[in-house]
């Protein structure tokens, strides 16, 4: 008798129901790790892993894991130690000699790391690529004349002017990575997603809008990273990232500060809040009436209560900032005035300024909760002294263009945030007169500031350089165009068993130093 398989509608429906049931069955924690895999959320897509053309911290975090530099930052500090180099000596203010460790190998068969690769990598920042693109980080190597190659492993970096921050900011940073000349030339544009380095990890896969997979580089012998694989998952929505951390699908993520409170005490999750090193301030356009009047600016500063503003913005998690350079960075002005709210003084200044009250001013902000809350408090505080504030909140794309060109001239009040750099002269450059219409939204036009900033950028004497940086901050304070608010705060969430590693700003992660504990 022939054996037939029934293929009725009933059978098909039953099969579909069975399949459905199978897929709905509980699967438990999907993030169970096979071996040592670190799963990290990235909030932004990878744009380019070609160091001169990288665009943000997602790119730079991967670049730090994939490439070696002559010097590398130690975990959690801006101090540096030798990395690909066995010696780096500042012979004169204009010459730095280096000697590479022999036997360092690029991945994918691109041979040994040589002084010629160092020359190629550093000089690349000053040259356009094959498509005519210039590096956005060319200024890092502005003082570079050339790299002279002595032999396979030795060379000299020749500078046109002294660069006191070159070691910690450039050589130990992402502008100091060593690329394989052969690989860059052979791979072309593809190198942006298939970088060839000699560092602790290599990029195994980049899946656009999805993930990046890093695997340990067996050729890297300086130390062995704890995690065999780092899987970086692209999760744009912070709420989804928080839930994925709770469910164990990711091991590490940055959190919104308000979400961090909700995760505190959740079993198996550690939440760390770290003061950031960004600077956030309420700025005033010094070229727009009535803010072109010093007394009006001083009155606004006197009417504001910085502590109340940051309490509303960061729920007590962020420290107060009184000057541009944050504590623990070179040039911090420890004696900067700590302005307290003084409404009587504010009214007196406004009366003396000869402006008619009520004044109406527009406060432009980024549409993030912290800024919205701080703006609302500022609005209420200023109302009490006769200044009516209209809040203009803008999404990121629009907001970051607010200071440009003509729209910059129309700005009045704004709350702004910049990322800080270990180099104080670098941080001050955004307030130079030539940045008016670009990033100097206050339109703070001080030739003296420009002169001191230029001198500090070439001053190799640490003590007198600190004095110069403090002098810059005093000039900013005298202008009364910036009310410093906070350094921001970073909240990071991670699974028990992970000890993350990052630079002091909390925003730059060092995957190769993450520990499995």
């Amino acid at each position, binding site marked *: 008798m022939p054996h037939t398989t029934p293929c009725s509608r009933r059978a098909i429906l039953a099969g579909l129901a069975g399949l459905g049931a199978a897929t709905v069955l509980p699967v438990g924690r999907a993030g169970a790790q096979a071996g040592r895999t670190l799963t990290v959320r990235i909030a932004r897509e990878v744009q380019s892993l070609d160091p001169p053309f990288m665009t943000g911290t997602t790119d730079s975090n991967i670049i730090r894991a994939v490439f070696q530099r002559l010097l590398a930052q130690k975990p959690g500090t801006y101090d540096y130690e030798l990395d690909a180099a066995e010696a780096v000596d500042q012979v004169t203010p204009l010459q730095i000699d280096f000697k590479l460790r022999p036997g360092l190998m690029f991945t994918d068969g691109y041979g040994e790391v040589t002084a010629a690769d160092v020359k190629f990598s550093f000089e690349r920042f000053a040259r356009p690529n094959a498509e005519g693109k210039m590096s956005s980080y060319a200024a890092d190597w502005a003082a570079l004349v050339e790299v002279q190659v002595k032999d396979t492993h030795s060379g000299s970096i020749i500078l046109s002017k002294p660069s006191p921050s070159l070691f910690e900011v450039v050589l130990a940073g992402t502008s100091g990575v060593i690329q394989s000349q052969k690989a860059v030339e052979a791979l072309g544009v593809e190198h942006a997603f298939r970088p060839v380095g000699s560092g602790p990890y290599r990029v195994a896969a980049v899946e656009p809008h999805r993930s990046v997979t890093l695997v340990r580089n067996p050729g890297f012998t300086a130390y062995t990273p704890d995690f065999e694989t780092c899987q970086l998952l692209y999760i744009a929505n912070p709420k989804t990232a928080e839930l994925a951390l709770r*469910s164990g699908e990711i091991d590490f993520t940055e959190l919104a500060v308000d979400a961090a409170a909700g995760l505190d005490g959740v079993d198996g999750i550690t939440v760390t809040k770290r003061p950031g090193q960004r600077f956030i301030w309420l700025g005033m356009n010094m070229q727009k009436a009535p803010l072109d009047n010093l007394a009006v600016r001083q009155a606004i500063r006197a009417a504001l209560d910085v502590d109340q503003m940051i309490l509303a913005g960061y729920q007590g998690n962020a420290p107060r900032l009184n000057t541009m350079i944050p504590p623990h960075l070179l040039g911090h002005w420890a004696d900067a005035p700590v302005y307290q709210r003084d409404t009587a003084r504010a009214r007196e200044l406004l009366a003396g300024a000869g402006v008619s009250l009520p004044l109406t001013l527009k406060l432009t902000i980024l549409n993030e909760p912290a800024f919205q809350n701080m703006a609302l408090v500022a609005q209420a505080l200023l109302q009490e002294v006769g200044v009516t504030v209209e809040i203009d909140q803008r999404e990121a794309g629009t907001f970051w*263009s607010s200071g440009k060109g003509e729209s910059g001239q129309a700005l009045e009040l704004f709350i702004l945030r910049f990322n800080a750099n270990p180099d104080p002269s670098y941080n001050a450059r955004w307030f130079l007169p030539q940045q008016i219409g670009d990033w100097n939204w206050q339109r703070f036009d001080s030739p003296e500031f420009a002169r001191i900033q230029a001198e500090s950028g070439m001053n190799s004497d640490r003590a007198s350089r600190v004095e110069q940086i403090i002098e810059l901050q005093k000039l900013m304070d005298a202008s009364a165009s910036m009310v410093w608010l906070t350094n921001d705060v970073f909240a990071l969430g991670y699974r028990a068993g992970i000890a993350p590693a990052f630079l002091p700003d909390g925003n730059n992660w060092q995957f190769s130093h993450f520990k499995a504990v």
Partner: protein
Amino acid sequence: MQSYPAYVINRILTAVLSVFGAMLVIVILISLVPGDPATVLLGPLATPEYAQHFIAEMGLDQPVHVRLWRLAAGFAQGRLGTDVISGQSVNTIVAAALPHTFALAFAAMALACLVGIPAGVWSAVRKGSAGDTAIAMVSVVFVSVPSFILGIVLLVVFSIWLDWLPVLGLSPSASLRDAAIRMILPTVALALGWIGLIARLVRTSMLETLGQNYIRTARAYGLREGLVHYRYALKNAVIPTLAIIGMGFGRLLGGAVLIEIIFARQGLGSILYDALQARNFSVLQGTVFVVVVIFIAVNLLTELSYALFDPRIKFSRR
């Protein structure tokens, strides 16, 4: 009276015109979006010369009519443009994402039909019962609450409280089973609104159909109620719903965009979100164009098939 071939040609020409109209709207809207793409994409360190070069590379320094012409010429040759940041072809980016969005949209629509149609029929034949009222209430809730809110609720309930399903819609492994499991919550979140809508539409149509003479006749012949409902009544009652489903496919794609972001799924949604955030206009316009073409194509197919399926629509035999 118009013949069917003439009707088809007429609809196709309208669709082509709609595509051109959409291109014009894309170009105009992009020129109206505030914010400087060079500032957003290149950051503060870019030199003014490079920023200018970058803007020129995107074609944003050209007048609207030149940009429209270039766009139309590129699209006519099947070129959606090049991502000026990564150097990748937008065709490649969209082609990689499209299957994920389609899978989600079709799965959601299939689920919505599988649940919504029987629920509508059940409601209609038990008009006024407690079950009918309950379905009506639940349907209204599903229709009114946006899919991304439903998505978050589903995540909290099924992934965090019950720990049954994963949060992330993207599968870190290549396993098909894992990918299927990760599709469940996004599919349900996207389908719920449609389940409510389809249930209400089918109920209304069914009530109208059940009052028809041919249904009374079928009952008079002693046919089983199930047969009357599903074979005779539903066949006609479902036609208006099919039209709504077709027309609503675009809305479904819009919902899929948000759901992809909530569930961190790869797809057109995440591409559009990133491109808009970063003012990456070359990717944005290519992707929006693809979405518009899909929307117009689905509407066209719906109109053409509706004309075929609905016996009340007549064409001349000239």
